[in-house]
């Protein structure tokens, strides 16, 4: 296993050509106000803009072209560093680069290129339009990339299944000392419990009823503890099995403070059995049991706020997460694993369903991202000591249309229904903010910590 590297992402259609990034770079790298001394260049192209910046290529042309050995890729950081003491100013490096990433600076008298500002690029910090993004996925990869994927390589989740993504990431991070409960739903449905005498998981896994996941898992955990073995008990359940059918056993286990980590993968319906509505299906959504026709226009009730219900159980840890914000998800997973050693930890992860929500499979992460950016999904975490905190800013949310219009299940919505959804989201946000303002004071006294 080698390493992955951080990169700077340029979203051309978000760029307004303000050139602040160039000013920031020139200031940071050359103590100059001259944008020509910037390592990043935004170039007008047609109606929009293009980026000229070093990509820190995996197999860099500039390094190959350099006859003096003045350019070298750092295996640790991935940055291609320029060594002024070796450079002979032949400019062959600039000929090889297809991205305009290395160029001659007349004032400095030598070539200049981006060095990623030691992992904190100045250009990205000043970009207000979101056109420049510092992609830090490499940090996750370098940390957990070589941990074993604890599911079989072949699971029969739909193409682009977000739930499969959640399963593989979470279990990999949790590690092999675990017992997994997967009640009926997409998760065992795609073969994680196995069939025909074969298993889909490399760790012990069992298939409880829809109704008894949390109680059965609590018993398994207690027995392991009695036998003196420190084994994590994890539930991977859908929103139907969690919010509706399995709720009484979940509520009981949470109330007793059983030491389990319960992960609810919320795809807003009973997707495995044919996309029926669940208690977590949002208002207006098409499902096979809330059809759309002459009279019916999708679900007529709002979704229940399940993670908030779990907060009311005063669990050791409750959080909502989204796969579009993986670092946040991993951070929360870590805290949930820690909390599950002494109390009940609950993670609610939103999982856009390409088949049931009616959108192209490649758009899955984009849908998850839009859900958060429009405040349709709020990301927060709770523990009894610190109370509830939003972990993704809810200000400056994008208009809800941007989310609704990409999903087939909302294609029929009329303006009144959209207004209803907007109202519901505003109420949700106000409620969450109310909890966030209350902090952990009163609940900390009663909490199990």
């Amino acid at each position, binding site marked *: 296993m080698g390493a992955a590297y951080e990169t700077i992402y340029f979203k051309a259609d978000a760029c307004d050509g303000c050139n602040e990034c160039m000013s920031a770079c020139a200031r940071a790298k050359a103590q100059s106000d001259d944008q020509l001394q910037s390592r990043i260049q935004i170039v007008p192209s047609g109606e929009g803009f293009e980026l000229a910046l070093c990509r820190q*290529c*995996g197999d860099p042309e500039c390094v190959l072209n350099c006859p003096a050995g003045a350019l070298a890729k750092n295996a640790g950081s991935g940055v291609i560093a320029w060594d002024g003491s070796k450079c002979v100013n032949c400019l062959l490096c600039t000929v090889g680069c297809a991205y305009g990433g290395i160029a001659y600076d007349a004032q400095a008298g030598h070539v200049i290129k981006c060095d990623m500002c030691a992992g904190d690029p100045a250009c990205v910090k000043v970009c207000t339009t979101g056109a420049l993004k510092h*992609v830090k*996925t490499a940090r*996750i990869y370098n940390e957990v990339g070589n941990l074993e994927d604890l599911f*079989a390589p072949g699971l029969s*989740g739909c193409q*682009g299944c977000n739930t499969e993504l959640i399963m593989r990431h979470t279990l990999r991070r949790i590690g092999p000392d675990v017992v997994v409960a997967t009640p009926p739903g997409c998760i065992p449905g795609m073969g994680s419990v196995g069939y025909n005498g074969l298993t889909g998981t490399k760790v012990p896994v069992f298939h409880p009823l829809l109704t008894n996941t949390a109680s059965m898992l609590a018993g398994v955990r207690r027995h392991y503890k009695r036998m003196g073995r420190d084994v994590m008990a994890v539930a991977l359940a859908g929103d139907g099995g969690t919010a509706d059918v399995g709720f009484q056993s979940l509520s009981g286990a949470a109330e007793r403070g059983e030491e389990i980590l319960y992960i609810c993968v919320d795809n807003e319906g009973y997707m495995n059995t044919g996309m029926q509505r669940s208690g977590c299906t949002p208002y207006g959504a098409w499902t096979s049991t809330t059809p759309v026709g002459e009279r019916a226009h999708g679900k007529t009730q709002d979704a229940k706020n399940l993670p908030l219900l779990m907060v009311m159980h005063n669990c050791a840890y409750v959080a909502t997460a989204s796969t579009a914000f993986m670092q946040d998800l991993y951070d929360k997973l870590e805290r949930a694993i820690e909390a599950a050693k002494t109390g009940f930890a609950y993670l609610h992860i939103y999982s856009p369903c390409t088949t049931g929500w009616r959108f192209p499979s490649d758009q899955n992460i984009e849908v998850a991202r839009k859900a958060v950016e429009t405040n349709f999904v709020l990301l927060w975490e709770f523990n009894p000591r610190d109370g509830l905190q939003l972990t993704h800013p809810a200000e400056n949310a994008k208009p809800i249309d941007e989310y609704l219009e990409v999903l087939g299940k909302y294609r029929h919505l009329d303006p009144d229904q959209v207004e209803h959804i907007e109202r519901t989201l505003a109420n949700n946000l106000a409620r969450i903010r109310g909890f966030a303002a209350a902090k952990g004071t009163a609940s900390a006294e009663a909490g199990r910590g």
Partner: protein
Amino acid sequence: MKQQAYKMFDASTIPDDLCPIATKPTPMLPGDWRSMRPVVDRAKCVKCAVCWLYCPVQCVVERPAWFDFNLKTCKGCGICATECPQRAIQMIEEAA
């Protein structure tokens, strides 16, 4: 552990294979579901690992200077190509 007050049943009469435990992972590989296949432009790949992060089947494999795909398990969903920050991945049609 406490003894049962009275014996409910004779445990020795339970057959060994009543509840078999699967220990062999399923060999099913979903690569043949694919109609579109991801192809990496090695010159463009900067090894940022975004494709790995979002790949639902986790079929991304690391090579010395780029990331590649295990086509035995890749279902061809196209998330990697959409999310790649350097546009280094293209989805091409599988040959008929």
